[in-house]
Structures are given as structure tokens and as C-alpha cells.
């Protein structure tokens, strides 16, 4: 297939995944910010949301205050934020339009329909209830797009490149949350009466839609190190780093087998997968969680660049 087609498919998936991620961050932040101060509310959660889902420097250049209104605008609707939900849907649809022929009708209708509907939402005039419905709608867009890809695409390189885009983006998103919130996940933050942080932890789980999953996996109350374990190392958890790398390795291998050639991206992905499966969460804490995450983000970006170099240009 054309390199450009693969590139468009890859970014199409990345941006639909990103729209979903930003919607989850906003949703979870709204809940957290609504809590009374004694439960951890009223701290500036909105700044954390921007740090996780956008670019704080860019935000501060555009707005004078960090509050619900400005963050909502920046993350959901702003044309100046490349990762805003509106922009992500726009870019996804542009990519889809460029490779209309490589998509199934269902995929095209999911993304084109979303793009058409998006014009009907007016961010500035939304009350909280309407905004919550908007976020729900965004999550449904990603669900129906991803679902139609899964249900209708031929299992060939076109499909594999959509999976690669999704997995790289997801790994990056999960790592961003960990990067912003790692301090509340460290074991030493569990102080006497540490329930103050309980809502921070559950917020993180909500952001990756894993609150219920947590209980099924660990069968105990929410502990910060187990949250970290779930998000980084648990292979059953769809948004964990370990699971994303399983996906990446599998689909890169499929591509390599089909084309009869392996390259740097296969090597980088396998190396990271080996690292994740050979590690325990205690080891990560011992060596420094922040360092681990920073290193992961940079390796993940390297893999993205390697995939681009090897297949997309």
C-alpha cells in the first residue's frame, strides 16, 4: 500500500483515540473539581487536566486564568490547541477523507458523521449538563469508529496500521497521566488518613476507564501502588503500557511477516515489551517512577518516529 495511505490511517486512529482521551480527562476532572474541599476538591485540578491532555505553555499563552471555562474551551473546542477534541475530530476526518478508498463505508460514516455533527455543538453556550452530554457523545464517536474498524476492515496492512496508531497514542496518553499524577501514586504518599488522595486515585482510574477493572483485578480497596501497577504493568488492562506494547509488537510483527522484512521499529517495540514484562512495580518505585515515565515517553516517541521512517514516508 501507499506510504501516504498508511500514514493517513495511522494518524486517523491516533486522533480519534486522542479525542476520546481528552474527553475522559475532562469528564474525570469535572467530577474531581466538584468535590468538597475536605475530599480533595477545589485544588486546581484544571491545571492538571491541561498538563495531561494538552500543552500548559501554549495554554498560558492563550488564557490569563486557569479555570473550568478556559480549560473546557482549550481542551474541547479551541482551534488553537492541536489536541482539542474539535481539532482532533477535524484532523481525523481530514485524514479519513484523504484515504476514503482505504476505509470501509462504516468507518467513513462514523468519522464523517461525527464531523458533521460537531458543527452543531456550540461550546461557549453549553451548561455543565450539555457539556457532559457532549463528552459522552465524543466517547461514542471513538467507540463507533473503533468498533467499525474492528468489525469491518480486512485483516491486512491497512488494519494493522490503524492498530499501530491506536496503540502508540494510547501508550502516550496513559504515560501522560502518569507523568502528571505520579506523585500521588508513590507509596510514601499513603499517610495516616490518606483518604484525601483516594479521589485522586479513582480519578486516574476513571480517566482510563478502569475503576471497575481495578476491583476485578486486585479485589481490594484502591491503593496507589496498585493503581500504578494496573496502568503500567497489567497486561489485561487495555490502556496499560504493557498491553499497548503487546499490541504494538503483535501488529508490527504482522506487518514484518507480510512484507518479509524486519526493521528498527520491530526491535524497539520488542525491547520495550521485554522491559515491561521483566519488571515489578516495586522495582519501578525503587529506581524512580518519574525517571521511568520520562524515559518511557521518550522511547515511545522514538518508536513512533521509527514507524514513520520505516513505513510512512
Amino acid at each position: 500500500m501507499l506510504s501516504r495511505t498508511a500514514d493517513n490511517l495511522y494518524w486517523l486512529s491516533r486522533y480519534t483515540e486522542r479525542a476520546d482521551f481528552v474527553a475522559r480527562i475532562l469528564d474525570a476532572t469535572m467530577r474531581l473539581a466538584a468535590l468538597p474541599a475536605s475530599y480533595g476538591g477545589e485544588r486546581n485540578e484544571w491545571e492538571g487536566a491541561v498538563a495531561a491532555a494538552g500543552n500548559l505553555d501554549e495554554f498560558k499563552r492563550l488564557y490569563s486564568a486557569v479555570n473550568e471555562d478556559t480549560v473546557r474551551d482549550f481542551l474541547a473546542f479551541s482551534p488553537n490547541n492541536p489536541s482539542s477534541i474539535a481539532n482532533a475530530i477535524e484532523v481525523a476526518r481530514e485524514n479519513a477523507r484523504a484515504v476514503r478508498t482505504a476505509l470501509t463505508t462504516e468507518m467513513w460514516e462514523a468519522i464523517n458523521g461525527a464531523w458533521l455533527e460537531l458543527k452543531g455543538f456550540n461550546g461557549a453556550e453549553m451548561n455543565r449538563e450539555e457539556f457532559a452530554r457532549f463528552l459522552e457523545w465524543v466517547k461514542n464517536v471513538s467507540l463507533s469508529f473503533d468498533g467499525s474498524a474492528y468489525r469491518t476492515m480486512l485483516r491486512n496492512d491497512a488494519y494493522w496500521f490503524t492498530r499501530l496508531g491506536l496503540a502508540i497514542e494510547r501508550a502516550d496518553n496513559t504515560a501522560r497521566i502518569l507523568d502528571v499524577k505520579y506523585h500521588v501514586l508513590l507509596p510514601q504518599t499513603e499517610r495516616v488518613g490518606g483518604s484525601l488522595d483516594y479521589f485522586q486515585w479513582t480519578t486516574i482510574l476513571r480517566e482510563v476507564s478502569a475503576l471497575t477493572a481495578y476491583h476485578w483485578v486486585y479485589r481490594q480497596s484502591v491503593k496507589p501502588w496498585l493503581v500504578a501497577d494496573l496502568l503500567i504493568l497489567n497486561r489485561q488492562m487495555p490502556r496499560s503500557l504493557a498491553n499497548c506494547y503487546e499490541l504494538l509488537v503483535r501488529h508490527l510483527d504482522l506487518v514484518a511477516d507480510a512484507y518479509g522484512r524486519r526493521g528498527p521499529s520491530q526491535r524497539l517495540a520488542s525491547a520495550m515489551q521485554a522491559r515491561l514484562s521483566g519488571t515489578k512495580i516495586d522495582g519501578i518505585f525503587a529506581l524512580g517512577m518519574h525517571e521511568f515515565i520520562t524515559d518511557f515517553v521518550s522511547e515511545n516517541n522514538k518508536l513512533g518516529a521509527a514507524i514513520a521512517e520505516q513505513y510512512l514516508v
Partner: protein
Amino acid sequence: MGRAAFDEMTGRPNGQAAEGVRSAYAALKEWLETCPPDFFDTRRSQAELFFRRIGITFAVYGDNQSTERLIPFDIIPRVLTKPEWELLERGLKQRVTALNAFLGDLYGAQECIKAGVVPADLVYRNPHYRLEMLGCPPPHGVYVHIAGIDVVRVDEDTFYVLEDNARTPSGVSYMLENREVMMRLFPELFAQHRVAPVENYPDALLKTLRSVAPLTATRDPTVVLLTPGRFNSAFYEHSFLADKLGVELVEASDLFAKDDVVFMRTTEGPKRVDVIYRRIDDDFIDPLVFRPDSVLGVPGLMAAYQAGNVTLANAVGTGICDDKAVYTYMPAIVRFFTGEEPILNNVPTWCCREKEALSYVLDRLPELVVKEVNGSGGYGMLVGPHATKRELDEFARKLKHDPDGFIAQPTLSLSTCPTFVASGVAPRHVDLRPFVLTGADEIRIVPGGLTRVALKEGSLVVNSSQGGGTKDTWVLDG
């Protein structure tokens, strides 16, 4: 306006009591009269929704309001009988055969210039005459693989060719999608009529393209469709056709030439390309040869083409046939190259480069339609009867300044078809663009084509960029 137009449903000039009906339209007329109005309203909004969902849009240059909009679709089909179509088909084949022979001659022996069939300066000074093509015949000698010949009707028996589109004619996706929508919305109507199918067009196009692969290609040649990209007004059509053909939709940056061979960049490395169905103009094909400022082209593509290692469809240099001054010589060209009388005639045309014609045109400007010889898409034309005094004066000045640049035609009473408008069903002027495919083996035409309709009352301009709409075109089989 001259005399009243021929209405294809009633068979009578407009304005007269519309009681009669031509037999081809009998069932349709009854359908229009018996179905309740809200039935049509629902169907029209369903059709619109369908077009929006599939993303069939058209960008209008210079319109900042919306980069993508729908071409209005009218749900009342336009009907042609089998004998009418057979006449058109014969005429179209003859005309396209002549066009191909004409181009082969212009870039070869130039007999038609020596014989005085066309004036030499009209050829040599034409911006679309490409010296690069001299003595360089394209694979299998075919120049115009895909032609869109615009045909208008003026009465029961007379069809005229309005213009020849031999560069990169567009609109065929509308022909196919209009039929698709109609079959979904009105299965009952199709059961009542025997409508010749058009859905085999992509198959015929692919056969045509594969038949003209260069001799250096393998038995399974690689065909691609070259688009200027998704910001082009016809991008939907490009992607639609690539999909139906099952070929890659490439942009210039996806291609490169090496040692006079063209390749595309794929995830598995370079892959050789044999036939390029290009939907970009000559000027933007190869910055080394044509426009150095163009970022659209593929450096080295022209050299590979001249070396005979790749086929371009259509060939470089076919634009000269779109020239409206050359058009005026088409009847003579048809006679010269086929030895037959033209089956389809030209609209009577004054070629302003001829002195007598110019003074006639200047005298009668308010009655005439004046077109730029190199214009297209309905831009830069004057419709005399609808023009203001100022527009008339301005065109008179232009004509005197550059008579070679213009032709003039009488304001034809294009035939009308019943069409849904705000006030109900009313006659509106239509034209027809059939698509003629020429391969190394044969000429293929699917029955019908794209009917364009001028939605404004009395308007004769059917171009989609000027507010025209489209209709499904039915050729009744028997």
C-alpha cells in the same frame, strides 16, 4: 430568448398548454401527478442526507463560506429513448475517433494543416499545443482515453455538440451516485421502466486503462489515479473512482521517476507504475518541463512518458481539442479524418478571429452567448440576453482587443425537463455529458451520462460552479 424551448416531457414548446406527453415520459408524468407532495419532500431530503453521509461534495473556487458543498440533485430523471441514444452513441464514437486521429496528426504528419482544414496559427499559437509531444506518439496511439462530450438538445430530432472535453472531464461520479440514490429511493419506478444500467462504467474504464499500458509493462499492469489532493474541487470523484477501480489514489509526492521509470512509494518500498489516470492538468505534471513553480508535479515524469515507459491518460497536449476556436473547425475535422458527414453537429458558431464573424458578433451581442476559447466551467462567459449594458460594453471592448480569444453562438433554446423547484414542478433547461472511453481495443460508452440542469428559472448555465444541479439520466432499453 428567441423561440420557446422544447420540453422533453410534453414535447411542446414551453408556455403552451402542457397537456400532451411524449411516450418515453408517460409513466413518469403519471407518477408526478399521482404521488402526494409530501412523498416527494421526504424522498428529496432522504437523497440529500444520503449524499451528505457519503461525502459527495464539490468545492467551489472563490467561495469562502464553505469549502465543501453538495451539488443540488433533482429526483426527476431525464429520459432518452433507445433510438435517440443510438444516434448519440454513433455520433459520439465518430467524434472521438476523429479527435484521436486529429491529435495524432497534429503531433505527427500535420496533414490537416497542410490540407488547410485548420489554420496553422490556431495550432502553433495555442497554449495547449505541446511541442514536447511532437513525434512522440503515446502508447497504442490513443490520446483521448476519456472524453466528456457536452451535448444539448433543441427539438425532437436535433442534438448539438456544445463542447468537447478532452483534458480531464469530470462528473462521472455523479452519474453513478445519482443512479445509486434513485434505485434506493424509487425501486417501483425502475420496475416500470427498463433503464439501461450504468454501473459497469468503472469496469469499462479499468479495461480501457489496462488496454493502453506501455509495451514495457507486465501482463498485469499497475494502474494509478493521480489527484492534485484533497483540496481539489473534484477530490471526491477522484477517490470514488479509485475505489471503484480498485487502484491506488496517488498524489504527486507519492510518485517519483528514476531512470525514466515511474514508481510509487509504498510501505513495501518502490513499486513500478505503468498507467497513470491523471486528474491534473498538463501544467502540473512535471515541474522540470512545464511549470517550475508547481509543487504538484513529479520531476522526470515527462521524460519517462517520452521514453514510452508509462502511459498518461489522457495524453499530454489534448487540451487543444477543448479550445473553443478549434471546436468551430470540428465538422471539417470529422469529415477529413473519418471521410463521413458528422452525425452530431456543432452549434452554429462564429469564430471571432475571422473578420466578418467579428463584426456580425459585435452587431448582435445582446442576442448571443460569447465564450473565451480557453475558458471552462462557465467562468468568463457572456449570456447576451441576460447581460447588463455595462457587461455588454465590457465584452465588446474585450472582443475588439482580442478577437482570437473568443467565439460566439446564438442563445440556444436548450431543451427543458420537469424539475423540482420551490414552487413545485417546473421545466428547467438541461444538457448532457456522456463519457466516451477509448482503449487500444475499442470505444466504450455506458448508456446515458451526466444530465446537468440550470435550476434558476430561464437560466441556461448548467455548470455546478454556477448553481446548476444534476439529474439521473435514463436510457430506456426498448
